[in-house]
């Protein structure tokens, strides 16, 4: 067996890669892209393919593949080498639709590469030149990316380089995060942690805590998403494109021009959402990607604070004060027990309440169960949902006066149901939202709402009346069977 020595970082006498070359059983077909750090090749598997693959790799034969090969610029560029090692280590640990699927890796001792799923869709980079975008489009991009980030945060990952060129969309619109060269995974060694003495990230997007070397706060990604949304809304970068550490640190004390001052048709709620992403202190931002996505999908539920009305940047005195406190400031984030625990401490609890049918006793029990769950987590959000049944056909006719009044009546009923816990748990400051869904099938509507909003737990009542249950079927059993999250079924 070959023993490798450490002098093999730069593979000796490596033939330049060209179309037709076969590396470890992967045939290079066509160079698709040359980036700052890597080349991307379209590849196919010939003769079984080798390289180092996880034992349980059952990749479908028709999965389109690319090979990412780092550009190594002489021995003086540890950043590109370590970044590539980080990605080799992290990508196999990630799953799901929001990341390209990992297939194989090749080591630096011979030919370093990663073979992964090719995502055909466009990257967001091109859209940056078209900014400002239509408000609806900004919202759509924001909620899709927030959803993807939340899913990665749940998998113990902080991306730490969220920017348009690292976001690609699948044909169905699902956002996919790529390039994990700067990422931190809580359950894998952080190869970058002690490697460099400069903040790591991309100038315009880097969060204040990243400037201060914090690498494990998922809210850093929400800051970067806020920078993107600001840019797509206004056509400008909120903090410019600084290249020096001093320039990067400016964001600790200089706040951005409020979006509405640059674009009059930016709704106040969107300014609220964006500026909340851009808060200097992570604990003042959205506390999870799911909470941000929920806000973007239901603007009427976004509580407006002074942020929404802000028309100017803060005055010189305020800046001076903030600058003074930012000198030598250490990150003030509360100690985290890990990426995932931060998002787990900020769960979305969905109370699915049948305000019309449920008995008073069941409504009380539901309220008490929800109270017990929400009281344990100060970061929890409560989404109260009811489903307004619509006919399977003739949907258009429903949007009439009668339909509207039913809708309002359900909303009133939901608010009335939630009022005691809202008061008791002090949920009025934006931790409580109300949603009346219109759908022909209650269970499907509940399951879809939970999936779309990355709900952590559904609380709902069992249908009490056994005759009704026999004829109509049980909504809760269908939800239990189909939902991806925890479901608590409450009986009176």
């Amino acid at each position, binding site marked *: *067996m070959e*023993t*490798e*020595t*450490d*002098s*093999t*970082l730069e593979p000796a006498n490596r033939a330049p890669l060209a179309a037709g070359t076969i590396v470890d059983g992967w045939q290079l077909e066509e160079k698709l892209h040359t980036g700052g750090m890597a080349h991307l090749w379209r590849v196919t598997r010939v003769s079984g393919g080798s390289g*180092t*693959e*996880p*034992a349980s790799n059952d990749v479908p034969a028709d999965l389109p593949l690319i090979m990412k090969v780092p550009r190594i610029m002489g021995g003086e560029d*540890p950043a590109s*080498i*370590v970044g590539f*090692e980080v990605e*080799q*280590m992290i990508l*196999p*640990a990630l799953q799901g639709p929001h990341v390209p699927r990992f297939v194989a*890796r090749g*080591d*630096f*001792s011979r030919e*370093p590469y990663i073979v992964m799923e090719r995502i055909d869709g466009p990257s967001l980079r091109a859209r940056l030149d078209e900014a400002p975008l239509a408000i609806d489009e900004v919202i759509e991009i924001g909620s899709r990316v927030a959803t993807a980030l939340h899913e990665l945060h749940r998998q113990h990952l902080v991306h730490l380089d969220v920017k348009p060129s690292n976001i690609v969309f699948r044909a169905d619109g699902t956002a996919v995060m790529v390039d994990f060269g700067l990422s931190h995974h*809580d*359950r*894998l*060694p*952080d*190869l970058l*942690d*002690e*490697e460099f003495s400069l903040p790591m990230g991309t100038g315009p997007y880097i969060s204040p805590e990243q400037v201060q070397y914090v690498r494990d706060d998922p809210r850093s990604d929400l800051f970067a998403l806020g920078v993107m949304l600001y840019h797509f809304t206004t056509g400008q970068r909120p903090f410019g494109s600084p290249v020096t550490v001093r320039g990067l640190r400016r964001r600790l004390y200089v706040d951005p021009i409020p979006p509405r001052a640059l674009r009059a048709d930016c709704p106040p709620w969107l300014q609220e959402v964006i500026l909340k992403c851009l808060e200097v202190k992570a604990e003042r931002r959205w506390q999870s990607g799911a909470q941000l996505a929920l806000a973007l999908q239901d603007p009427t539920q976004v509580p407006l604070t002074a942020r929404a009305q802000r028309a100017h940047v803060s005055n010189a005195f305020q800046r001076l004060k903030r600058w003074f406190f930012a000198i030598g400031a250490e990150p003030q984030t509360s100690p985290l027990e890990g990426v995932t625990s931060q998002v787990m401490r900020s769960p979305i609890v969905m109370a699915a309440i049948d305000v019309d049918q449920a008995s008073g006793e069941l409504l009380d029990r539901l309220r008490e169960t929800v109270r017990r769950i929400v009281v344990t987590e100060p970061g929890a959000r409560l989404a109260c949902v009811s489903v307004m049944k619509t006919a399977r056909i003739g949907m258009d006719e429903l949007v009439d006066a009668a339909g509207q009044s039913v809708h309002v009546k359900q909303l009133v009923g939901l608010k009335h149901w939630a009022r005691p816990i809202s008061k008791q748990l002090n949920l009025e400051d934006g931790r409580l939202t109300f949603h009346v869904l219109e759908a022909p099938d209650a269970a499907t509507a509940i399951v879809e709402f939970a999936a779309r909003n990355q709900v952590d737990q559904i609380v709902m009542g069992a249908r009490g009346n056994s005759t009704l249950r026999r004829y109509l079927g049980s909504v809760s059993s269908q939800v239990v069977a189909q939902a991806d999250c925890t479901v608590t079924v409450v009986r009176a």
Partner: protein
Amino acid sequence: MKIAVITDLHANREAVQAVLEHAAAQGAQHHAFVGDFVGYGGDPAWVVDCVRQHVEGGATAVMGNHDAAVAQGARRTMRAEARFVIDWTRERLDAGQLDFLDRLPMTHERGDLLFVHANAYAPPEWGYVEGKSEAVRSLLATRQRITFCGHMHEPMLYHLSATGKSGSFVPVAGEAIPLLASRRWLVIPGSAGQPRDGNPAACYALYDEDAAELTYWRVPYDHEAAMAKIRAAGLPQSLAARLADGN
């Protein structure tokens, strides 16, 4: 090949059995026992026989400081409690078992892997890899790319890049960690028979050579039974109590 790396068994039969069963369920095809089969626990003869049988079947085993002390007899310079445990252990082993311990090699190499109880820079001196500086010293003392050590009872992973940057990592059970070929790695699976990181579950690690992936595991076992044996043997009570606390 999947290798189960088991170290610091310390005469704890219940823990070793649980670890072997878990490793079998994970598909382990080879076993490496990285020293300290005896000492502290109440079942030295069973554990030595178990390791010996595995070695006869092709497994790897290296010597630990407790194995050396038991094989060679207690020295006067040792603390009274340690001497007591060593003398007690010797009385429970027959000549064949003592001979097996006495003949254990200090190190074992397999491909680019090294197995050594304490460290690679001075194996018979039993110096502890307490942090990055000792880990780097050990990694630089061997040509082997991946070193598996015991001696320290807390699970730990150290790595060293080609440019000399080193890092340490407290592993999480059940997460596969790719041991990239571009780095050197020092793996401390943690003690199977006497964990000391506050978690009483037995430690071991599984290394998949083909995928170059390392997974640390924690296996709960019947530590009450192991404690009862220590008490019944008249060994120091503290040795029983620490199995429940994991420290």
